[in-house]
């Protein structure tokens, strides 16, 4: 169950978009910004408020890669595996991260909810390949060693 009292906030977001069904993607985007994921209760509430079916909002929320129905970790790490990063060896970096955080491609959030690891297809910083972002801050020219150090620093800060 999503325990936060969300109605006031969600109402505000919806009314800022004039209760317009066509703005549904922007609305979901802002809601996700607020809660870092899309809790089921919130999606149902938005659908009912805008008078669209639950199936439709579920369809939209699952179609776009940026939307998540599951809770994510505090630090979101995105590893670019676009073409430029791929040919400059992004996979060893991904492997190093998985190993350091004890994760894999099926289970990509750490149990302590500190990290979520995602691969993305291109961050548009190809000149600096291979890159990763931690909470949207770009870290250029990564190596497996550097990424482990970076993760350890974040862990230390979290303590």
């Amino acid at each position: 169950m999503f325990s936060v009292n969300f109605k006031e906030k969600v109402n505000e977001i919806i009314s800022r978009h004039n209760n317009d069904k066509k703005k549904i993607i922007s609305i979901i985007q802002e809601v996700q910004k607020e809660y870092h994921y899309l809790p089921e209760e919130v999606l149902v509430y938005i659908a009912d408020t805008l008078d669209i079916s639950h199936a439709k909002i579920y369809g939209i929320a699952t179609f776009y890669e940026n939307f998540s129905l599951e809770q994510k970790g505090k630090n979101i790490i995105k590893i670019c595996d676009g073409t430029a990063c791929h040919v400059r060896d992004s996979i060893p970096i991904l492997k190093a991260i998985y190993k350091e955080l004890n994760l894999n491609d099926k289970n990509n959030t750490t149990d302590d909810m500190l990290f979520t690891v995602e691969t993305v297809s291109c961050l548009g910083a190809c000149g600096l390949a291979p890159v990763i972002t931690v909470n949207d801050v770009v870290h250029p020219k990564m190596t497996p060693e550097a990424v482990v150090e970076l993760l350890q620093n974040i862990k230390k800060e979290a303590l």
Partner: protein
Amino acid sequence: MIKNYSELVSFAQSYKKSLDRQRKKVLVCAGTGCVAGGSLAIYEKIKSLIKESGLLVDIDLTKEEEGIGVKKSGCHGFCEAGPLVRIEPCNYLYLHVKLEDCEEIVYKSLKEGKPIERLMYRSNGALYKTQEEIPFYKKQTRLVLHNCGHIDAENIQEYIGNGGYKAAATALAMDPKDICKLITDSGLRGRGGGGYPTGKKWSQVLSQSNVVKYVVCNGDEGDPGAFMDRSIMEGDPHKIIEGMLISGYATKANNGYIYVRAEYPMAVHRLQIAIDQAMEYGLLGDNILDSGFSFNIHIAQGAGAFVCGEGSALTASIEGERGMPRVKPPRTVEKGLFECPTVLNNVETFANIPIIISGGIEEYKKCGVENNSGTKVFALTGNVVNTGLIEVPMGTTLEEVIFDIGGGIPNGKKFKAVQIGGPSGGCLIFDDSHLNLPLSFDSLESVGAMIGSGGMVVMDEDTCMVEVARFFMSFTQRESCGKCIPCREGTKRMLDILEKITAGNGTLEDLNLLYEIADTVKNTALCGLGKTASNPVLSTLQYFYDEYYAHVVDKVCPAKICKGLAEITIDPKTCRGCSKCARTCPVGAISGKIKEPYVIDKNKCVKCGACIEACPFKAIKEA
């Protein structure tokens, strides 16, 4: 608020004067690449150092006295060497600038006007003081990127001071039909990849009798390895707005949308600033420059779906639907956004419009080759020395781009292939004979490739082309929207086969089946994504069949990339015979005597790599 043409001219003159009063300018690159390298901190440091040193800083173009302009500019393009700092008017370009360098920059370069040679570009022993001398820039023709890296992207006054919005003002006094004809005559073709004549598209929208029409700018640059649209949106957002405004007037559309992918937060931020400023100055909104024409621009953000780069999927996404393509016709020019006639052009296409209007078509056509006028921006990345954003006239050869501008392949490796236009732009150009090929829509099509959006990823001899095909297929398969069967099922099956081959289990029959599926998907898929999804497979099969053959028959990966085909061996010289590997091996493939070198039985080995990690002497290697 600028009310009419003559006011715009006088505004431009006064901004120009303010700009000229800035005797010296420091341009700190604030493109995504350099920001990642810490350029914003450098900007702040330089600003405060100048203040401390008693020199006058001029940020907002308001000072009457002479001051030093400090600006956050858009992307300079030479991302490899960032963070970049450019000093005008001497045009010094400093590379890899660090916070510690700021003091020297302020005192030596700004106060005394001297160059700092250790921060300048060097190649083969030669020193290149100015940006213009550096080979990376020298061979380029920067029309679309002209302002990128030279003006403050967040300041409309700089854009106007450099002649901005003059083309729009000119166009607003023309007949819409004449503008469409002018664009047609200029020979401008859509820079998003298709190469459809822009003027023709506009004329088709103009000829529709509907009252409501739209102009949509496609900034959903989803191709991995491409970032030219991002750099234009971040570095010169007003040029796009001006292009859209002209397009709106020429096609009698009053509303525009810019669709930007969510991965580009800085582009969204700068575009929003630019739109707000244009509204404030009366260059968007009602009755623009007293022409009676009204135009508004909205930003629509994507949410992470590659297929939304396709026209009908993009408009569906703006409408708040799942971004899935629909069957055409009707085409977007007839029924596009909200079922209304819509001009849908790419970012770079719109950025070309003001250049054509203000410079005239004769001037514009001087650049480029027959039927391919103008320039094209490419994002040069991968295994190449100088990565970054480049702009060259259409018709420039691949060799000039990769070797003269890009500086060739690093680490003394050999050139193998270049991939242009993304995974479903699907165009790989291989072997040396293609190096002389002029880059244009038509010439690339003649070798079975296409210019695509302009992402150019260079690959060296260590790249396995089968793996590359697998990589692209996994991308397209993931991004397939699932609406039509050929794409949904076909990409999945092709990926299965490619995975089987790279794992070392492929057969010759698989190659035939792969070809058959690729051909079917190409001919039957619904949209551009599906139709071109096979291209990486078909082109690698065509040009690198021997590599496929080596994978399935000889069971080797010539580039030694595919793990499944690797052979794990123990170096007898390094092995001390500790037996740890034999005890770790899950299939009992390693045997030997204590204190003597151990050996791996190739037939039993499953290549799990457990022994490599277990060996305390690093004697086991994968090759």
